[in-house]
């Protein structure tokens, strides 16, 4: 045990949790071990993975986004109405909403505001916009969007490929590139980054704009899957995305995040629901089981952390 590298252990926890979960699902319901079964289970996990990535960008700079669920809902409503009927207006609205996210980042940085409160307020704003666009559930996804999301890849379901690409792209962008190091450092040690001549404002705006972009992607994929929208469609994403990043090995402070872990965490959270329904656990206990699973994984993590401390 003593020779185990704590860093490796830390990175392995999310992967192991997902693997364990998948094995359990396959054993209980062998039919899921097929193209169709995996596709069905993972389809709704993909937008959660994107929303989790958006949350990861915000957590990297020591902030927290309580509005991502409302934002994804609003994007879904825009996609199911304007983007379908008047594409130009829809595209403009989506770009404007990404700009709004960037502006929020600037506001939070310039006035040194607590992100929790600002995004809490913005969650009302996004939700209000969603309600204005779609007062009752409905709308229709643009055909091209549905076609992309429901595209049948040969051999491997699109959701798996897309998740892998998502994790790898952000991993190389944020963890391996020079720019990514600076972005993470602005969460790890802002003073040092500022002294080294970087503009903290620009870095924070970049992260918020990235979060907005991934939020938009999440909403588009969600509508492509469900083909219609309603104003409350993604509200639970706020909590799921935070939990996903943390499950994936991220920390709340210090720019310590793991993009690949976050994707695994998001998939794990999304699949827990499937496992529970295969186990014939009544839906009432599903949310509780998600909570228990979070606690167990975090307990494991704190063990790993103590292990790390002792190793140092």
């Amino acid at each position: 045990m003593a020779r185990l590298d704590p860093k490796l252990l830390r990175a392995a926890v999310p992967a192991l949790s997902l693997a364990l979960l998948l094995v359990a699902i396959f054993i209980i319901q062998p039919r899921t071990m097929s193209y169709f079964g995996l596709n069905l289970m993972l389809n709704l996990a993909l937008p959660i993975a994107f929303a989790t990535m958006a949350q990861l960008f915000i957590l990297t700079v020591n902030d927290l986004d309580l509005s991502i669920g409302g934002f994804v809902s609003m994007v879904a409503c825009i996609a199911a109405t304007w983007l379908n009927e008047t594409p130009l207006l829809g595209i403009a609205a989506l770009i404007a909403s990404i700009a709004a996210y960037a502006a929020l980042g600037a506001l939070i940085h310039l006035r040194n505001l607590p992100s929790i409160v600002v995004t809490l307020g913005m969650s009302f704003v996004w939700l209000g916009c969603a309600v204005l666009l779609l007062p009752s559930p409905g709308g229709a996804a643009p055909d091209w969007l549905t076609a992309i999301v429901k595209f049948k890849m040969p051999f491997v379901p699109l959701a798996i490929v897309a998740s892998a690409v998502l994790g790898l792209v952000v991993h190389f962008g944020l963890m391996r590139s020079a720019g990514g190091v600076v972005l993470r450092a602005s969460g790890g040690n802002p003073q040092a980054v500022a002294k080294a001549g970087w503009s903290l404002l620009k870095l924070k705006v970049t992260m918020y704009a990235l979060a907005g972009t991934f939020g938009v992607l999440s909403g588009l994929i969600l509508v492509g899957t469900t083909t219609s929208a309603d104003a409350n469609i993604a509200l639970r994403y706020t909590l799921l995305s935070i939990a996903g990043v943390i499950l994936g090995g991220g920390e709340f402070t210090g720019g310590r995040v793991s993009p690949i872990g976050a994707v695994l965490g998001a998939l794990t959270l999304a699949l827990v629901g499937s496992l529970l329904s295969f186990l014939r656990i009544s839906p009432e206990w599903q949310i509780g089981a998600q909570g228990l699973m979070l606690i167990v994984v975090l307990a494991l993590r704190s063990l790993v952390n103590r292990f790390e401390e002792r190793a140092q």
Partner: protein
Amino acid sequence: MTSRLAKFQSIWQSAPYAFAFIGAMVIFAITLIANQGSGAGQIVSAALAFGSFYALVGIGQMFVITSGPGNIDLSVPANIALSGAVAMSIMGGSDAMIPLGLLAALGCGAAIGCVNYALISVLRIPPIIATLSSSFVVQSLAIVYGRGLRITPPPFLAEIATGRVAGIPILSVLVIALAGVMALVLHRSIYGRFLKAIGQNMNAASLAGIRVGLVRFGTYVLCAIFAALCGVLLAAFSGGASLNMGEEYLLASIAVVVIGGTSVAGGFSNVSGIWGAALFLYLLVTMMNTLGVGTGLRQILTGLIIVAVITLAGSRRGVRE
């Protein structure tokens, strides 16, 4: 412009609670003008009644937020749902069982608080995630326990929750008194001073010999008990417990703390601002209803006002950095 902003901020910092009350009064005036001056008494009475629930959860949340950056209790809504259901089912509509039901509900709240702090302290989970995960579990318990529960509250409790004396809701008098007691606890008691010290600088507080763990533990339990009390009263107010009755109180509990002028970074709080903000929030909804603003626009305006308040108030720079 800048100097006016600076002036505004200096007023905010000397009397952070003032703006919530001023805002509430401005909104009240606009509503009255739109109403041509009628219905003032009813609006005030309703604001006091609904504001009581915001104030109850807000006070609990404020104590938690006071204990330092990162501290927050997200289990409030689930706690409200479970405690309300427990109280209603034990009371079974009988006045004689009120003390027992109340005790059970508060005990249930205290247990949730203990679990929250155990997760934070023993498992070293950040408070936001710890209370979030425990709230998932509590939510499930509430769903299973409260399923099909249709028990009306005991008449005496319902009278306390909904009754009025000379137009003033009995509940609001009780909650204002409770707020007064909690203000004393916060500013005058040793516990309150320890709490603020911890919020301002946990390491310094610890080195000064304050038992940080014990104070934080008590604070999470206190917040959970307040949420439980809100659950019981809310169930009594609305004629029985329902599963989603706590939903709006997550955002509301945080919003009243912020609008009330408590520092989100911890260490600086005031109880009176909570009441100002609670009235402000309720009157805001009333005003927009009176002006015929639709649901969507109402939410957008509520959100923008929260963002505007926090932007104008700014944060207390230099306290922790």
